[in-house]
Structure formats: C-alpha cells, structure tokens
C-alpha cells in the first residue's frame, strides 16, 4: 500500500468521523427520548416502519460506521500485535463488509 492510499484512508477515517459525530448526536437524543417513552418494539417500529427518512439516516450511519470501525481496528491491531500488510488489510476489509451487510439488514428490519 503506497503513501497516497494511506493518506486517503486517513482522510476517510476523519470524514466518516465527522459524519458519525452528527449521526451519533441524533442517535443519543433519540435513545434518551425512546427510553422516556418506554422501550418497546412498538415504540421503535412506530417511529421507523415505512419511514424513508429514518431508513436513509440509518443507512448513512451504517455506511460510515462500516468504514470507520475497521480503519480504527486496523491501527489498533497494527500497533498492539505488530500485524501489518496484506493479511491485516484483508481482515479489516472483511470486517467492514460484514458490518455493512449486518447493519443494512438491521436498518431494513426496522423499516420494511
């Protein structure tokens, strides 16, 4: 992996961090609100079922997390286990894909 790609990964980490910052503020406010109303399936699904705005929001949230978390894990694994190179990059790529798929599934689960 050349330096230019590494810089682009760093930019992606910071960009998704900014997106996640906004998403998480919304998420935290929503959670406190939901807890006050009593957390039931009806309460959650009443908000998300058939609501394309929430669906789009959660898809963006999932996409950003699916990029941000693996890149963070890549740094932690490299620095604590001295694991570097193609095998690490493949492993975190797999993690990213898994998060994207499971996350999209979860978003669909509360929308569809």
């Amino acid at each position, binding site marked *: 992996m050349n330096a*230019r790609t590494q810089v682009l990964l760093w930019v992606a980490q910071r960009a998704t961090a900014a997106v996640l910052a906004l998403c998480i503020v919304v998420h935290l406010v929503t959670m406190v609100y939901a807890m006050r109303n009593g957390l039931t399936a009806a309460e959650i699904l009443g908000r998300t079922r058939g609501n394309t705005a929430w669906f789009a929001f959660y898809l963006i949230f999932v996409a950003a997390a699916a990029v941000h978390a693996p890149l963070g894990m890549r740094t932690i694994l490299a620095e604590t286990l001295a694991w570097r190179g193609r095998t690490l990059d493949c492993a975190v790529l797999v993690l990213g894909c898994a998060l994207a798929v499971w996350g999209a599934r979860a978003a669909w689960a509360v929308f569809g």
Partner: protein
Amino acid sequence: MTGEEGAGVMDRAAGSPPALRVRVWRGGEAGGFQEFQVPRLESQTVLDVVTYIQRNLDPSLAYRFACRVGVCGSCAMTVNGKARWTCRTHVAGVAQDDTVEIAPLNNLPVVKDLVTDMREFFDKWARARGRFTGTRSRSEDFARVSPASPARREVDAAIECIGCGVCYSACDVVTWNREYLGPAALNRAWTLVNDVRDNAQAERMAAVAGDAGCHACHTHMSCSERCPKQIAPTAGIAGLKRVIAAAVLKGGL
C-alpha cells in the same frame, strides 16, 4: 556513604546531608539497575549525580554530556521514567523518597549504560527530508521573509529544536511503529514546509505522508509535554496532516 575529602566544588554542607539512593541502568540491551549512594547536596542536578558516580564510585559508568548548561541536549536521559536533560533537572525536583532512577533514553538501541545509539534518530530526520534546499545562489540578493508572516510564525514556533532526542524517547508511536519518523523529524519537516525559500516541497510532503509519517501520530502529546525547548511537535504534525490531505484531495502526491 562513600568517603570524600571536603575539597573542590562539591563540599559537604555542615551536619551530614542525607544520602541519595540512585538506581542507574548498567549494561546494554540486556542489563539491570545498579544502586549507588550519593551525598545529597543543595542545587544538585541529576548530571551532577551521574558525574559523581563515574568519578568517585564506578569509573566504568558510560554517559554523555557536553555543555552541562542546557543548550546542547547531549545529557538527555530517562529520569524516574521521563525523558529530560539531566543538567537541567534538579534532584530536589524529581527525587521521590530520596531515590532517583536514571536510565538511557527510550526507543533507541542502548550502546552501554546511559549511552544510546542515535543513528536511527538522525536517519529518520534525513528520511523526512529535514534539510533545506534553496534556489538562490550567492550572486543573487537575499530572500526577503517577513518574521510577521503567518508561515514564518509557524517556522519560528518550531525552529529551536536542537535534536536532543527527548521527544523521540517519549513517543509511544515510535515504540509501536518502528518505521514512524518521529516527532523531531516531522517537526523539522514542518519548519521547512513553511519555508518559502525551499523548493523541495513535493518531495518533502511525499516523504512525511502515510503510515510511517505524520498520519501515524495519535496526538498523545508526550513529545510536547517533554520538550525542553517547549516546542509542540504535535502542532507541526497536525499542520502536516492538513497540508498533505489538501494536496492529496487535489490529486497531488
């Protein structure tokens, strides 16, 4: 307590001062701490202590120093776990329960006792393109750079580095990522990135970008915390991140 005559500079104060228990790293990569008892004196520095040990207790102790007045950086060592200039560290300021622990700088190969091999430190300086490349010759007029210009202010905040290695020793990313150029090399690169007379900016930015360069910094700020010249390499490294990100997003590098 060792015997000494009351001759010369290190006269004993009246009333038998307490002894300072000093643990000193001996050996190379493999080694251990050896204990000495050193008379505790007023205004004593850690370098005074090391010097006392080598002259009076164990002449085989290896250590570096030069100016002994806080301008050269040669006496940099780890004192009670923190990298410092020993000539500028008063024993009274660091001793805990009349004990001081002295070890060589971290992150560098140990040659012997308190002496480290500084080659990788300076090699990384060169790899970061930490040298000036100008365009003018002696037959041209001086370049005019206003000290008040924003770029020059950035340079001035970081230019006083004397390459002592304290920041390099303090940095954990240097420990975890053996290719990492380190705070001093990156700080110097930053001063040159902001030098309007230098014409090697493209090569320099390529040299300090990526996992071995500025992007590996996690803003621990141990370097800025320990720098005896109060330079904040973290600030310069953040600056490099900004400049390089902008260049890459414009299609450069």
